[in-house]
């Protein structure tokens, strides 16, 4: 029943999906934190930049961003992110697009976490003479991160599902392989079931595990 799978690198395709997810998640966490810091900073210019970035990027379809990285950045402007061959270029472009998109959601999640830190703590921190960045780094962000593990998990799972969009620029991840297999094999239902199962295996455990972590680390008040 499963002999048609020979000749297809199923695990390899899902491994690319996982890699896309992990690299983009790391990038989005960093850039999203910077954006969140900008959005709460005392400088109106930084706040404006952060707000504009989040509102614009969240409202553009991810597909447009990903296709733009390939057609616009790479083919028109020649941005290749230091990669030599097409496979690596497309992979890096996909990571760039996913990072740019996901960081807007990370920023919003973090900002809601910053709101959960009691005002009294922040005032106390300022009273002992900490500067804005010290308040943010020592008092606010550590607590904010612990309280937004849940929302960040949702972002991570959405990101896992969003990596399929990379198929649009020819990254050989799960959705791209599914498309190829559907074209070549007359096993539509079985193929779809395999890929559906693969994604359930990726998303459900992530949700359950990080749900548990989020209960464990959340600051009890």
């Amino acid at each position: 029943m499963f002999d048609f799978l020979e000749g297809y690198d199923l695990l390899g395709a899902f491994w690319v999906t996982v890699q896309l997810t992990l690299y983009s998640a790391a990038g989005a966490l960093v850039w999203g934190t910077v954006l969140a810091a900008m959005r709460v900073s005392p400088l109106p210019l930084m706040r404006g930049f952060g707000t504009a970035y989040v509102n614009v990027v969240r409202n553009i379809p991810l597909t447009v961003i990903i296709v733009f990285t390939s057609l616009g950045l790479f083919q028109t402007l020649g941005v290749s992110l230091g990669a030599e061959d097409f496979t690596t270029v497309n992979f890096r472009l996909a990571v760039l697009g996913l990072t740019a998109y996901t960081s807007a959601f990370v920023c919003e999640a973090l900002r809601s976490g910053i709101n959960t830190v009691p005002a009294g703590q922040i005032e106390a921190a300022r009273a002992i003479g900490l500067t804005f960045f010290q308040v943010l780094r020592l008092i606010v962000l550590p607590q904010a991160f612990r309280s937004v593990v849940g929302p960040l998990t949702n972002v991570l799972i959405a990101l896992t599902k969003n990596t399929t969009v990379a198929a649009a620029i020819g990254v050989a991840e799960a959705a791209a392989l599914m498309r190829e297999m559907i074209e070549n094999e007359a096993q539509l239902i079985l193929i779809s079931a395999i890929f559906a199962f693969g994604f359930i295996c990726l998303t459900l455990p992530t949700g359950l595990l990080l749900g548990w972590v989020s209960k464990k680390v959340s600051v009890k008040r």
Partner: protein
Amino acid sequence: MKPTTLYDVPGPRAKRHNVLLTVGFLAALGVLVWWVVQSLADKNQLEWDKWRPFFTDSGAWETYLLPGLENTLVAASLAMVIALPLGALFGIARLSEHRWTRGAAGTVVEFFRAIPVLILMLFANAAYAEFTDVSPDSRPLYAVVTGLVLYNASVLAEIVRAGILSLPQGQTDAAKAIGMRKNQVMRHVLLPQSVTAMLPAIVSQLVVIVKDTALGGALLGFSELLASVRPMSANYGANTIASFTVVAVIFVVVNFALTSFASWLEGRLRRGRRSTGAVVGVGVVEELATPGEHLGRDDIEGR
């Protein structure tokens, strides 16, 4: 976030500091913008010829952009209209007192929330080709709408569930006190009120649907807004950047309007005197789209 909790009203030193930082940030932004403009200019992407079609010539709009936008909006609204009743059905089934109904509906909802929309669209596209005689021309639209319906019906089911749970318990108690049966309570009391409560969440889910239609353009040959970039840039002299910019701006305008409308609606419902005060806010939509995530009564009212 009250900005004054994180920092004081700046004194003379903080003011100097802020000015310096602002100048530094402005310089960094300036370098970035200069680099972008320079590389665009190097590739001749800033020539007026490449941008003119979108400003002086109605042809670009009539031939490419408006039909693309129309297809995007048609697919999105079809998906919403079909997914809403399905979602309501599954959402109510998940609240059923019968274990099997609840379990079956729950499984279906969790299954479709865990799978990427693109996988569903690819499946629908192939399934229409194999099992039905839908013409190849209209197949992309069918596939896009089917994929969107399967995914969004399950998300909407969660929104409906959250909407019904957000109503004060007194509503059910009062309805039972005047002798209504279970399904009368649902049909006459809970459902009509929950529709109002979940309107903001539904409107903001529309943004997700509009964005996801672009998948059909990139991977299934559905001629929506994004798909118009290639023919446009071929026709107007390789103006890829200009075409992308215009398409992105249209998406941002449409979705920003929907987002703002949803927030306005939420604020209005929260302040409203005649409502029960129950609202499924815009903010919870992301969480409802995650498999395994359930909002209990406390989560919803606490927001």
